[in-house]
């Protein structure tokens, strides 16, 4: 079961400071995005930390609309995939959501 208390201590405790996403990890992901990404200013991961929040919020909102269409209250990955399919700016995710295997141990058909 979810224990938000434990997690929010971690988050506000100082590892991530006032940002809700770990800056070092963001920087790592940025560096892996291409050969020519060599130098990243200190503020770039901070901007991304907020941008990612906005992104997660938007995709979550749209996915939830799909969940409601199924008349249920549990969001599944199919809802996230459906939200991607119907939103132009999420086109770059189409390949990802079509190919991500189901982590519940059943092999993808």
């Amino acid at each position: 079961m979810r224990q938000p208390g434990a997690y929010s201590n971690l988050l506000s405790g100082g590892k991530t400071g006032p940002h809700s996403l770990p800056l070092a990890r963001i920087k790592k992901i940025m560096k892996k995005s291409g050969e020519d990404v060599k130098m990243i200013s200190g503020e770039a991961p901070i901007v991304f930390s907020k941008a990612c929040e906005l992104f997660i919020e938007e995709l979550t909102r749209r996915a939830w609309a799909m969940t409601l269409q199924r008349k249920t209250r549990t969001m599944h990955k199919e809802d996230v995939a459906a939200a991607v399919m119907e939103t132009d700016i999420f086109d770059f995710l189409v390949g990802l959501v079509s190919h991500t295997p189901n982590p519940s141990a059943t092999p993808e058909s």
Partner: protein
Amino acid sequence: MVDSIGPNHSNKQRGFRSNYAVSGGGGGDEEEGAVREQERLLPIANVGRIMKQILPPNAKISKEAKETMQECVSEFISFVTGEASDKCHREKRKTVNGDDICWALGSLGFDDYGDSLKRYLIRYREAEGERLANQNKAAAAEAAAPEPLHFSFDLMDKRRI
């Protein structure tokens, strides 16, 4: 603040990532693969918390939905960084900065994000300037200095325009 080059294990494949340890390639060690998986995703706890915050209290989110979101966010970061990096390359600059990220967001269709974040970036730079000025004053005075500014921006109001 600028970071120097570290070892770059860039993965040019975009959009076809497995949720499991290393797939394809030269038979990588599963444990190693699992560690690498962790490094290319944002923590599921953080991602899940952001998702939960904007949903109604009785909403439930399956683990696989959170995992899918993790993958999407990493892809988002790569996608936007690539665009920002291309711009720097065209302009013969070596460092990707916050303005480049804001520009890339706008260029890729995330106009709303770009606008909010430009304001955020201005406030961040102002706060940083003040913080550094305070630190310098403290160092110069060698007296008990005021606490450095803890900037904590809440975009809650701005986000929903």
